[in-house]
């Protein structure tokens, strides 16, 4: 059962990064779209993410619940030492979620829309930025349970170049995912061209930020090079990701939307894999060489058992419905005009 639980944890993180990420990315892209094209972009965006919007964000909650039920010590340590970035991320989630629905359900369309749009855009950048910062801090050995001062315990647990670089990289990845996703949603060649350009832009941004991550790792003495290239599995992951990237660029202009999405999703999966497999089962690396491990710092067997069963039961119920939801809204226009 422990394996089941860990797989679910990893999978829900991946799915949050992919689906929630594409969703953040949609907001990021909107920020980077010229004013003239904004309305059209927004329309495409909404059509694409509207129906599955709520579900995309459930993955984060699933991951959190797995963490606090199955691995309470890890959840507690992260909650204490990453309190500040977590709080900022939460504020981002609040702002974004509400702005998103307000702008679509406000019965009156007027100047308030600008406000909603502005908040939506800003929080679409902040949230993944801090998500990345949190992820980066967990592996960069800055969290120090023995810290004495406020700064050491609560600020320098995350405020370092490496976590910030990971944060920026996450933002770029989200933008990239959304752009790829939206290429498949476009109707006209000119619109498609527009999103293809966005894919390229975001991809370049991601590569630059990825470079920053390596630089920062080198600077802080984090053995990222070794994690990524030091093991055949890591190398394999990198190669697979690169190959699919080349294919993606090749197919961008004429390929099918679904294929593009799968390729982009595969790349992100490889990135997450490469980033996590080498220090598995350690989820958090602490200052001074300590760690919090999924194998050692877990709840009692009965808890893991029950959690695993609940997750299996849940996925039997959820997955078919979710797949049918996504499938249903892939078919473009409804037979009769929808209300919204």
């Amino acid at each position, binding site marked *: 059962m422990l394996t089941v639980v860990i797989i679910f944890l990893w999978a829900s993180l991946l799915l949050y990064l992919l689906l929630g990420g594409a969703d953040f990315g949609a907001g990021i892209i909107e920020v980077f779209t010229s004013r003239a094209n904004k309305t059209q972009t927004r329309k495409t965006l909404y059509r694409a993410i*509207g*129906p*599955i919007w*709520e*579900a995309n*964000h*459930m993955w984060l*909650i*699933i991951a*959190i*619940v*797995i963490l*606090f*039920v*199955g691995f*309470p*010590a890890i*959840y*507690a340590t*992260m*909650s*204490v030492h990453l*309190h500040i970035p*977590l*709080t900022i991320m*939460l504020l981002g*989630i*609040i702002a974004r*979620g*509400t702005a*998103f*629905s*307000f702008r*679509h*359900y*406000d*019965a*009156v369309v007027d100047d308030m829309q600008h406000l909603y749009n502005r908040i939506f855009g800003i929080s679409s950048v902040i949230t993944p930025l801090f998500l990345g910062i949190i992820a980066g801090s967990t592996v960069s050995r800055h969290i120090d349970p023995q810290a004495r001062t406020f700064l050491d*315990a609560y600020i320098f647990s995350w405020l370092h170049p490496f976590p910030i670089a990971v944060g920026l990289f996450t933002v770029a990845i989200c933008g990239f995912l959304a752009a790829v996703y939206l290429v498949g949603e476009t109707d006209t060649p000119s619109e498609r061209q527009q999103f293809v350009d966005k894919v390229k832009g975001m991809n370049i941004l991601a590569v630059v930020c990825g470079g920053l991550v390596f630089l920062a790792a080198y600077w802080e003495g984090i053995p990222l090079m070794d994690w990524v290239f030091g093991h055949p599995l890591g190398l394999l992951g990198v190669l697979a990701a690169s190959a699919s990237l080349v294919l993606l660029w090749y197919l961008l202009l004429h390929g099918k939307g679904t294929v593009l999405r799968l390729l982009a999703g595969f790349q992100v999966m490889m990135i997450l894999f490469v980033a996590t497999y080498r220090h598995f089962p350690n989820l958090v690396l602490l200052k001074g060489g300590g760690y919090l491990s999924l194998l050692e710092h877990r*709840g*009692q067997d*009965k*808890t893991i058992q*029950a*959690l695993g069963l*609940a*997750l299996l*039961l*849940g996925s039997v*119920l*959820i997955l078919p*419905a*979710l797949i049918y939801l996504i499938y*249903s*809204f892939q078919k473009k226009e409804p*037979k009769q*005009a*929808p*209300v*919204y």
Partner: protein
Amino acid sequence: MDDFLAARSQMALSLGFHIVFSCIGMVMPFFMAVSHYLWLKTNAMVYQNVTKAWSKGVAIFFAVGAVSGTVLSFELGLLWPTFMKHAGPIFGMPFSLEGTAFFIEAIALGFYLYGWGRFNPWFHWVTGVVVGISGLTSGILVVAANAWMNSPAGFDFVNGQYLNVDPIQAMFNKAWFSQALHMSIAAFAATGFAVAGVHALMILKNKNVDFHRKAFKIAALFACLAAILQPLSGDHSAKDVAQRQPAKLAAMEAHFRTEKRAALVIGGIPDADAERVNYAIKIPGGLSFLAHGDFDAEVKGLDQIPKAFHPPVAITHYAFQIMVGLGMAMLLLSLLYLWALWKKKTDRSWLLKLFVVAIPLGFIAVEAGWTVTEVGRQPWIIYGIMRTADAVTPMPGIAYSFYLFTAVYLSLAGVVVFMLYRQIKMVDQLYDRPQGVKEYH
């Protein structure tokens, strides 16, 4: 503000905020399903309009409910890490099942809101019902987790260690049923009266009367049924509390001294130092009867409980009085409405005006009820096992976080009210057009 107080206030604020949205998220889908059903059966446009107008409101509430719930799942750890470290694996079962329920709710809502005209009408209707059922299920599950804090079960507490954890037993603790039942009914009463009141107001203003009358009737019927059941379930809860948390019961009733034939204290100002209640109405034997079903039964008072473990008496007592008082008021209004319905006099303006007055009552009662439950549990976070003060985060400066979240929640509440106002203002333009005119959007 000291950090401990700030953490408690932030928790209370977040939960008090979330509960409003979650009640509406749990209950409105049922109202929608009824009016949707009536539309499918009668083909009367007005029911479709009611359904659509409501579903827009629900979408707004759902989004705010979802984000405030997400915040809560983090806040449990951000504010109470020590609690979560020990409690997480024990009371986590309902949370992990709840994840499933939320997920299904979110998926079904996607189908429902975006599915107009896309699916078989009855499939579409069923997705709406699924939204309601899964919402209600998730509400029941979280409340079961809360009930565990009141009535810990499913582990052995030996020398500060939590051994032999059994998450299933923890979920089915002694308090879960009475709390979940009472909470679910409360959600129907609170949402029902709020919705009915808004439509009553519009009828009084003579706007789109047909539309609002239909909407009013659906909401009012749900509300009245719930308000009639609520005192019964409340009585059950009180008996339950008397069994498992005598300190809470004593605080609710401001019952300082253990006695037989204990009086029911209504109103009054508790004086915790002098251990008595001033200016109260007392019904001899009333408390004994309510708590144990026997006018002569002995009811434990606060004197049986060490001072260090007394909950704040005044807050708990006032909150309890408010809840019960409002519960009685809603009960009366419900009986009045049913009588008017029977006499076919539901259009009387005094009755509608009473419903307008009742808009906030249910929600005030909900907040008061939770105050009873949560404040009455103090100083424990896990009753009898862990003290709240020992669970709080070591991080200093929580006061700032509290101010920040207060500002955020206040502005959110403001925007939601503003949106609803605009929603209602637009009803005639959106839904009162002659047939054949194009949709607004």
